[in-house]
Every structure is written in structure tokens, then in C-alpha cells.
């Protein structure tokens, strides 16, 4: 699903025009970005958590040249899916496996 499809889908659900939706999306993104800049955590129920994490500096070696580099510290935006989202995507496979296990136990 690309950006266009995403906008059309969202506009359908909210009953707005795509251009209107696009503007809202931009506003919403700017809002989230400004919060993340301030080290806030955004927890979207049923979807996941956006969090800015600080990565420490580290020494990295280029395996081909053997040169060593000092990678500076950085702030990185991380996302962790919520448990419910994980369940949703793994439900089918879980069901299949569960049934398989049941079969095995019955036998």
C-alpha cells in the first residue's frame, strides 16, 4: 500500500476529500514529529509505540578495508508493535499450528 492508496483509504473512512485528508495527515505528522523531538513517546493503542532512543557511540570496522570508524551517538526513532497487532498478524499461523498440535495430541 503506497501513500496514494493510504490517503484514499483514509479519506474513505473519515468521509473527507483526499486533499483534505492529505492536509490532515501532514498536520498530524508534524504534530507527532514535534512531540518526538521533545523525547515524548507516542503510544497508539492497538498499533504500537513510537519512541526516540539514544544510541551510544561505537567503534565500527569496515570488514573489507579493516579501517576503524567511530560512529557518533545519535537519536533514532524506533517503533515497537503492540501485542494486539502482533496477535493479529500471527493469529492465522498460530491457529494452524495449534490445530496441528491438537491433531498430534489426539493421535
Amino acid at each position, binding site marked *: 500500500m503506497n501513500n496514494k492508496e*493510504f490517503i484514499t483509504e483514509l479519506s474513505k*473512512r*473519515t468521509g473527507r476529500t483526499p486533499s483534505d485528508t492529505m492536509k490532515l495527515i501532514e498536520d*498530524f505528522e508534524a504534530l507527532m514529529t514535534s*512531540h518526538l523531538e521533545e523525547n515524548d513517546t507516542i503510544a497508539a493503542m492497538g498499533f504500537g509505540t513510537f519512541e526516540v532512543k539514544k544510541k551510544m557511540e561505537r567503534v565500527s570496522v569496515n570488514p573489507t578495508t579493516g579501517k576503524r570508524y567511530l560512529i557518533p551517538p545519535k537519536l533514532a526513532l524506533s517503533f515497537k508493535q503492540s501485542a494486539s497487532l502482533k496477535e493479529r*498478524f500471527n493469529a492465522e499461523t498460530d491457529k494452524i*499450528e495449534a490445530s496441528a498440535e491438537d491433531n498430534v495430541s489426539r493421535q
Partner: protein
Amino acid sequence: MEKKLSVLNLAEELAEKSSITASQAEGFVRAFFDVLADGLAQDDIVKVKGWGTFKLSAVSNRESVDVNTGERIVIKGYRKVTFLPETALKDHINKPFAQFETTELNDSYSIEEETVDVEDAGLDTGALPHADEVNETFSPAAEEKPEVQEETTALEMPAGTESESETPSEYEAAADVEIKTEPEPVESAGTKAGSGEAFEPEATTEPETEITIEPESVPIPEDEPVMEETGTPEPEALKREPDNVKRTRRPRRSWHYWLPIVLLLLVSVCLYIYITFGKGFEKPKYAHAAGEKENSIKVEHVDFSDKKPNIVIKTDSPKPTPAACSATASIVHDSTQISSEEGKTLEVKTIEAVPEEAKTLEVKPAQAEPAEAKSAEAKPAQQKTNIQPARSGEKSLKDITMADTTGYVILGTKATHTVQEGETIVQLARKYYNDKRLWPYIVKHNGLKNPNSVQVGKSIAIPELKAK
């Protein structure tokens, strides 16, 4: 401002910002994330402009251990939503740290490691041949008491002269100092002969040179007519003593730990000498057996030499003991050289020519045993080198290298040489002067603190030398 924002909080703010009702905003935000989730379920990937890409990626099964039971368990693979923020968003988030850049650590690190390696090699394993010799010469001195030190230094000297080591001068200088301070040099020689067995191999390898050393060392204290020049060089030697002492002291502490290694190195070097100078190997037996006798002979030398060198020769030569043969032979060379010199004039070239021939010629008749004759022949060059400096330096063999250092005057810089890998100061001396023994001048001229470790690429000024 580290808050945890929920959808409701976001919706409130969005309502303010976009001038829509709160309920509309809440509906929009919820719809936003729902669409994301649905899109993932549908296509496994959702791209949102200005935000990033959400992807569903599979995590495969992995094994782990149950914390409680310790059993191995398999954690089932699952599908995971990963988020890759857009570059613009990344940069925006990372703004506070944007000034940092990745830096290459290569240079500083490598240099440190290299220097450390070199030092280690020099101290511990002695990767370089020269370093080996240095180790030997230093370590024994460090381990033992003054008397023993003298022995070791005396013993090592010959090895050094043979195997073109750079160290001889220092040690010989040290040896000189000790000898001077001690009332009876003869005694020290005696102790040396009966010295620890650990050093026997070295002693055996170079009996001739040892012998020559001792008789010559005696004359130092008394100024003979022939040795008139001793007056001037001695002060220099004395000046240098402190340096030498320092050098020997520094390593002492750390070398206690390396005693076993150093002993191994000593043995290996002895083997090396044996292999390279295989001809002279038979000598050791004689020299050893003769050690005690030699001492007595040496004493005689001393007494006589005080008066006149020529007499000494005669008195010595009559003594035909096989063990003493080598000793007498060397002494004979000295006497012949001295006589050929006729006084105090120092003509190196003539000396060089005379002693060599004289040695071989005289040695052969004097020795009854063929083995010794061989050895004598095998090392005319060495003896020559030993004798020459004695001439110019007008002291004992131990002084030889010191004599080298005092026999010339530094007039200026003759050339500059950029050190290549594998080069040593001694090699430079040989290259520029055709005489490796002149290396101390290069060291002195450049003020090198450690002549055994010269960095590649360093430019060395080669001094212009003039004989005094």
C-alpha cells in the same frame, strides 16, 4: 518533557491545530492507525509520505533456554511490524546530534599498537638479532653482583665483536670501569674462569679473545711508554660511564622477569655462533680445561707487561701448555704489533696488515695442536679488530670500542641518511666508514638515546670523522 502520549492526547492537539472538532480528530487518528494496520495486513507494507514505511517482516524460529528448567525450547517465529522512518524524519529527530560525524580511528590507533609491539619485541622475544644480543648483554649484568657482572660483560664482549653487535662499546666501557675500580683485575679474571656454568658456553666460544682481553686490561692503570695516549682518552671514557650505567640500570628491573627467556636467548645465540663459526667450535674444550691455567698465565702477563710488552711475550711464549696456547698466541700478536708500531705512532693500516699475518704465522708454530691452529686462523679478522682498537685506544680489549669512540673527532656532518626498514646504526657505520665499530660516533652525533631502536624514516646525520 518526556510524556507518554496516547491517541486521545494527539487527537486533542490535532483538533486545535487543524481546527476540527475533537471527535473528528479522534476519529481521524484512530482511522489513521487502523488504516496502517489494515494496509499491513493487506499488502505487508505501507508507505506514508512524510513519515516512513511500515513493513511486515518474518522472524524465524530460534532456540533458547528455559530460564527456570534449563531446557532448550524453541521460540516460534512470528511476523513483526518494522518501521523505517523517512530520511527527513530521521534527520529531524537526530537534530541535536547532527554535528557529529563518523571519524576514522585508523591512524592514532595503529601507531600506538606499532610502538608497543616494537618495544615488546625488543624486550621480550627479541625479534631482531641485535635486540637479542642486547638482551643477553643486559640481562646477566642485571641479575648478578658486581663481580659477576664483570665476568658477563667480559664474556659477552667477544660474542659482540664476532656477531657484529652494536652493544660492545657500552659493555666494554662498563667492564673498564669495573676493572679500574677493583684493586686486582687478575682476581676478577680468576673468578671469571671459575664463573657460573651458565655462561660457560659463551666463554668457550671465544677463548682467544678473552685471553687477549685480560692481559691488555692490566696495563691500563700503569701508564707505559707505549700507552702514552691513554691519558687523553680515559677522561672521555669516564665521562661516558654515567650513560652506560644508566643504560644497564634501566632494564634491570623488568629483566628479572625475563630471566628464563634471556637464558634461552643466550643459548640460542651460542648455537648461532657455533653454526656460523663452526671452525672455532673445537676450541671450547681446551679453553675450558685451560681456564685455570690461563689465569695463572695471565697473572704473569700482568707483571711483565707492566714493565715492557716485549718481555711479556717471551715469558709467555715459552709456556707450551695446550690450553694456554691460544692465550700466548694472542699475546704474541700484541707484542708483534707493538714492536711494529715502534712507539706511540698509530698507523691503522700498517697495523692491520701486520697483525694479521703475524698472528697466523706465529700462532701456528706456537701451537702444538691442530684444532687450536684452526681456530686461530678462523678468527684472524676478529683478533685484528680487537687489536687495532687496542692500539689506537691504547687500553685493554675491553676498551677497544671505547678507543674507537675516542680515537676520532667529529668534524661535522658528512651526509644525512634516512633510515630504511631493517637498517641499524652499525650497518650505517659500515656503509659510510667501512667500519662497523664507528657506530658510536653516529649515535653521539645524533644524540640518539637508544641506538638499538631507530625509527624507520628518521634521518640520521653521518658525522665526518678525523683520526686524532
